C-alpha cells in the first residue's frame, strides 16, 4: 500500500466527479474508461457509483453522525485550551503517602497545640477510615420489573425475563430489551424502571432500539414493549437519548414516524410536566431536582419541547431551558462537549459556578457538600476523567488559590481562601 496508489485513487475519484458533472475532457474520459475496463472490480465500483442508490443510503446514514459534537471537540482541542488538566508528574500514590505522613505529623502537632490556638491548615485531608473511602462512580443501577421485583444491575450478565415473553439481556453496564417475541397476555403492558444511584451510571437499549445513557442519580420508566401510536417514556435526572427511527404501524408507505415522547415530571406539580417530542434524533435532557432549569440539548435531528401550552422547537446545537413554575423557555447554544462530557466519561467545565460543579461531584462521587460563608461566585474552567479520584479534581479547582476544600468522610466543605 503506497503513496502513489492513494494518489491514483484520488485521481480516479476526480475523474468520476467530472464525469458526473458532464465536465470531462476527451482524454480524461478515455483514462476513466481505461481504469474502469481494466478490472471487473473497477467496473463494479463504477456501476455502483453511477447507480447512486448506495451513495444515497450512505449519505443518509451519515446524517446520523453527531458531526457538530466532534467538530466542537476537535476545534477546542486545537485551540490549545487546556481542557484536560495537566496533572503534575509526581504519581498520585506519592502524593497520598506524603499527605498521610504530613497529616500524621499535623495530628500529633495539633494534639498539643489545640488547647492553645484554633489554627486552620491550608489544605487539610483527614485520613478517612477505609469503609468510607470516596471512589468515582461506576456502572450501577436498579431495575424494577412490572411486578415490583428489583434486580441489582452491576457486572453480572444473566438474562432477565419479563412478563409477556420479553427478554432483557445484561452486558457490562448495558441492558438490552428484546421484545421481538412479545406475546400479549392480557391488557397490561409490563412497565419497567431503571434507576441509577449516586455514583452510578448505566446504558439501556429500549425495545425499539433507542439507546439511552443514564447519568448518576437518574432514572427512566418505560413500557417493556412499545405498542400503540406513540412511544412514551419518563425520566428524572440526566439522560442522553439516541432515538431509533420507527414508523407508525400500517403507515409505512406514508412514512409517518411514530413519535417518541420523553416526559420529565415537574417538581411543582404532576400536571405540569415538560415533554420532549422527538422525531428520530440524539439529545440530552438534564432535569435534576436541585438544578434551576430543565435543560434539553439537541445534538442531531429535530425535537420540540413542550410544557403545558408552551412549546419551543430547537435545532441541532441548541438548548432549551425552563424553570419550575415557568412557562417561558430560554434558548442558547452551549458548548456541546460540556453538555455531553458525562456521557464521554469526563467532567468538563468552562466558566462554571463552583456550586454547579460541586453538585455534579456530589452525584458522581456520592458525597455531600457544605459551603462556608464568604465564598465569592467565581467561575472555574477545567476537566478531568470521571474515572479519576475526587482529590485530583479538587486539587485542580483549588489550584489557583480561589477556593479550598476540606474532606471529612463523605462530606466535602468548600471554603473561601484567605
Amino acid at each position, binding site marked *: *500500500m503506497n*503513496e502513489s*496508489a*492513494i*494518489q*491514483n*485513487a*484520488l485521481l*480516479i*475519484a*476526480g475523474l*468520476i*466527479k467530472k464525469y*458526473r*458533472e*458532464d465536465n470531462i475532457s476527451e482524454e480524461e474520459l478515455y483514462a476513466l474508461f481505461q481504469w474502469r475496463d481494466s478490472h471487473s*472490480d*473497477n467496473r463494479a*465500483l463504477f456501476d*455502483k*457509483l*453511477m*447507480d*447512486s*442508490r448506495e*451513495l*444515497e443510503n*450512505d*449519505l*443518509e*446514514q*451519515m*446524517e446520523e*453522525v*453527531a*458531526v457538530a459534537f*466532534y*467538530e466542537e*471537540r*476537535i*476545534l477546542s*482541542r*486545537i*485551540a490549545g485550551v487546556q481542557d484536560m488538566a495537566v496533572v503534575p508528574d509526581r504519581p498520585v500514590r506519592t502524593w497520598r503517602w506524603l499527605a498521610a505522613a504530613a497529616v500524621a505529623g499535623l495530628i500529633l502537632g495539633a494534639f498539643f497545640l489545640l488547647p492553645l490556638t484554633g489554627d486552620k491548615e491550608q489544605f487539610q485531608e483527614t485520613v478517612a477510615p477505609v469503609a468510607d473511602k470516596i471512589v468515582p462512580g461506576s456502572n450501577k443501577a436498579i431495575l424494577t420489573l412490572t411486578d415490583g421485583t428489583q434486580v441489582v444491575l452491576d457486572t453480572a450478565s444473566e438474562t432477565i425475563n419479563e412478563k409477556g415473553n420479553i427478554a432483557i439481556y445484561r452486558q457490562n453496564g448495558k441492558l438490552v430489551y428484546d421484545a421481538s417475541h412479545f406475546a400479549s397476555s392480557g391488557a397490561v403492558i409490563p412497565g419497567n424502571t431503571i434507576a441509577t444511584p449516586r455514583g452510578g451510571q448505566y446504558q439501556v437499549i429500549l425495545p425499539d432500539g433507542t439507546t439511552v445513557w443514564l447519568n448518576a442519580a437518574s432514572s427512566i420508566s418505560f413500557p417493556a414493549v412499545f405498542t400503540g401510536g406513540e412511544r412514551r417514556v419518563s425520566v428524572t435526572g440526566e439522560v442522553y437519548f439516541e432515538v431509533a427511527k420507527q414508523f407508525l404501524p400500517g403507515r409505512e408507505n*406514508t*412514512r*409517518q*414516524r411514530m413519535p417518541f415522547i420523553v416526559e420529565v415530571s415537574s417538581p411543582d406539580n404532576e400536571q405540569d410536566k415538560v415533554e420532549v417530542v422527538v*422525531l*428520530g434524533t440524539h439529545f440530552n435532557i438534564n432535569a435534576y431536582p436541585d438544578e434551576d432549569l430543565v435543560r434539553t440539548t439537541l445534538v442531531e*435531528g*429535530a425535537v*420540540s419541547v413542550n410544557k403545558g401550552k408552551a412549546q419551543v*422547537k430547537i*435545532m441541532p*446545537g441548541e438548548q432549551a431551558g425552563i424553570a419550575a413554575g415557568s412557562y417561558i423557555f430560554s434558548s442558547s447554544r452551549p458548548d456541546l462537549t460540556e453538555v455531553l462530557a458525562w456521557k464521554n466519561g469526563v467532567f468538563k467545565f468552562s466558566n462554571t459556578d463552583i456550586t454547579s460543579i460541586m453538585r455534579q461531584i456530589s452525584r458522581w462521587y456520592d458525597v455531600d457538600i457544605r459551603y462556608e460563608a464568604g465564598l465569592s461566585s467565581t467561575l472555574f474552567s477545567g476537566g478531568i476523567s470521571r474515572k479519576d479520584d475526587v482529590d485530583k479534581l479538587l486539587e485542580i479547582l483549588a489550584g489557583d488559590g480561589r477556593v479550598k476544600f476540606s474532606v471529612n468522610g463523605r462530606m466535602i466543605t468548600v471554603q473561601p481562601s484567605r
Partner: protein
Amino acid sequence: MELHVKNDEDCFRLLQEGDPAGLQYLIRIYFPVLCRYAIRILNRDASAEDLVEEAIIKLWERREAFTCIEEVKGFLYTSIRNSCINNIRSRKREQARFQAFAQIHEEDTGACIESEIIYAEVLADLRRSVNALPARMRKVFILSHFKEMSNQEIADHLHLSQQTVRNQKTRAFRLIKQWFKHRSAFLWSFFILLFFCK
C-alpha cells in the same frame, strides 16, 4: 454556524495559513465519510469516531508539511487505515494470546483500499453539494429527503409556509440534479413521481 469555505482549494489555503476554518470544512464534509471508511476497513460494526478525531488532530499538527490538498487527503486516508490496522492487530493479539505474532493480510482489513478511497471521495463530493445549499434550503432538503418528514411537518418545524417548503424543495432538487444524471430512465421517472406525490 455557516461554513464560509466552499471548496478544497480554499480549505488548503486556510490550513496553510493556520486558520481553523479550513479544518472545520474538512470536519463538516469529511468526518462521517472517514468514519464510514474506517468501519469498512475494520470490517466490524464498531464506532470509529475517536479514531477519525485523532487523525484529524494529527493532520492539524502537521498542516504545514503538505503541498496540496491531495496530500492532505492522502494523509487522512493513510493515517486512518494504519490506525485501523493497529486496532485489528491488537484485537487479534488478544484473541491469539498463545500464538506467535499475528500476521495481517489484506483480507483481514475487509476492504480494497483504493476502491474505498474512490467511494469515499464521491460520497464527500455529494456531501459537499448538500452542504453548499443555502442554509434554509439545506434544512428543508435534509428534513424531507433524509428525515422523511412531510411538507406539513417541515413547515411547522421551520416556521415556514407549506408553499415555501415546496419551493425550497424544487430549487434544492434542481441544484442537486446532477446526482440523478446517470440513473436509469426508470429510476428517474420513479423519483419524479415520488416528488409530485409529496
